[in-house]
């Protein structure tokens, strides 16, 4: 794991990736603090982070696109498979290296509130609470990026999908307002999701019985619940979309609340996608 971590870090700093990532993050947060803290003379650094979180849409895919896709393309994944290290160690090593690359510009950002506090009252507690939350939210998004990269051997494709998914997540709360909140609408949407899930299972496992079985069981459950108590589905879809949004949860930190459930949610998301990445790598041995 340490070997993978050191190796990945060396690769990031040999190539432009780490520098581009850091430069983008610093530039965006810099612009934010110029607009809010200097021009508008607001003493809340957390607003800057709220503004800056949009930059994740671009920089996380840039950072994570090559992490596994490139290994597959260059066939270096064969080396990783043949070395006496487990797939979990590979993924965790790579992920920790990404976190370190992410932490370096963040350490610089940590100086900003201190600098601003020289010129007035800055709420340091909320500032640093938000920076911590910002870090953990980014960590969750990076895990998502790692997973997307593990699905393909094309960096560009991984970046494109990554941008689309994160952008969708960013706007999912605004989008949810336009979505039907009736019970029937929710059921229809869930049915579409079940079909998609079945297709994914079928594609990954090449097992028809499993895919159709899972699909039918889920359909049956949904239908039975719908007929017994349709009210359960009212407003379900917009609700889910709001709940899934990583960015929406960040707003409570900006408002000065250190929300432990959000932290737990971020960590769960990160762990979930890392687990899926391990499975995705493992699966390649079984194709």
């Amino acid at each position, binding site marked *: 794991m*340490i070997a993978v971590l050191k*190796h990945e870090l060396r690769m990031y700093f040999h190539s432009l990736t780490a520098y581009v990532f850091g430069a983008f993050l610093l530039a965006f947060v810099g612009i934010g603090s110029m607009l809010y803290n200097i021009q508008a003379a607001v003493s809340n650094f957390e607003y800057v982070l709220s503004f800056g979180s949009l930059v994740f849409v671009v920089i996380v895919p840039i950072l994570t696109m090559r992490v596994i896709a490139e290994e597959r393309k260059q066939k270096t994944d064969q080396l990783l498979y043949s070395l006496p290290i487990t797939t979990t160690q590979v993924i965790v090593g790579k992920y920790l290296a990404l976190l370190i690359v992410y932490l370096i510009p963040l350490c610089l950002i940590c100086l900003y509130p201190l600098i601003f506090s020289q010129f007035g009252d800055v709420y340091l507690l909320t500032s640093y609470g938000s920076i911590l939350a910002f870090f953990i939210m980014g960590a969750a998004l990076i895990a998502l990026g790692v997973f997307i990269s593990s699905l393909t051997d094309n960096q560009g494709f991984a970046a494109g999908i990554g941008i689309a998914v994160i952008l969708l997540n960013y706007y999912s709360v605004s989008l949810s307002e336009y979505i039907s909140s009736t019970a029937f609408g929710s059921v229809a949407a869930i049915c579409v999701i079940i079909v998609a899930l079945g297709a994914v299972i079928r594609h990954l496992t090449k097992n028809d019985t499993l895919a159709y079985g899972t699909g039918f069981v889920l359909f049956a459950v949904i239908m039975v619940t719908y007929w017994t108590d349709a009210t359960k589905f009212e407003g379900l879809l917009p609700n889910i979309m709001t709940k899934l949004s990583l960015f929406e949860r960040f707003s409570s930190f900006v408002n000065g609340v250190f929300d432990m459930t959000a932290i737990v949610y971020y960590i769960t998301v990160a762990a979930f996608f890392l687990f899926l990445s391990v499975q995705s790598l493992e699966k390649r041995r079984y194709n």
Partner: protein
Amino acid sequence: MIAVEHLTKCYGDFMAVDDLSFEIDEGHVYGFLGPNGAGKSTTMNIMTGCLSAMNGCIKIDGYDIFEETDKAKKLIGYLPEQPPLYMTETPVEYLRFVGEAKGLHGAELNEQIGEVIRQTKIESVKNRRISALSKGYKQRVGIAQALLGNPKIIILDEPTVGLDPIQIIEIRALIKELGQTHTVIFSSHILSEVQTICDRILIIAKGKLIAFDEPENLEKRLLAPNEISITTDAAAEEIKRMLAGISHITDISAEEKENGFVEAHLKTDHDDIYEISRAVFLAFSGSGKALFEMALKKANLEDVFIELTESNDAAGKTTERKVAHK
């Protein structure tokens, strides 16, 4: 050392490896021979833990590659068909990573890196970016990587493909040298290569093992339809008349050359080809016709290979030969 039992692997409907079993002993150079798509790479990938198998088991020095993966992998150094190199690094950085991943550190790591660099003769390029190296040097860096950690078994998948003739000779010499201290398994579809380096040859086709023997034995096996080529100034009819007395000549085909000579090919079913050539010589010596050239044609590995990979009853032969080998 390595025991492969009933190994089976499918890609969808395609049977890449079909109930393959063999055993490999310590301290030889083994050649893995087969036409493209025979399942060589697949078998090697499974043996090194890069791929799963649908069925069967592989024991590396007693450790199951699927169960005790780490212990088994530590005994193997593997160079896949395409050397798995990180192009932005230098060989030294790359070897450092592989060494650390293999559990080496500190002075031992530095010592081993120096040792493999010396062994594979990449001293002069060790601080250049790998992307700038020639194919031959890339291959050597790949081999150096396999040698780290001093594994007992070195598995090389087509190590000489795409190299120029001098590089091929150098890599072959390196493989021979490695064979003195390690068990080396390497795959190839070039017969002469396998013939010169290997102590044992495994031939696989369509995922099945069709022969496992020493190169000389494999040749011997197909020596039966021996052939003698002669060049003479006798006409075709005369040749046939002269040699009619030799009972073991089964077939004579003659062909007139531009310079007036006749080249004839004699097939024999006699075990001792020299006996027949003596008879041919004596037949000519009394006839007043000259014998300008006489060549004994033995079946080479090429013929064995073609014969074996094209024969339809491959499965039947497999079992028979495995028993013979044991």
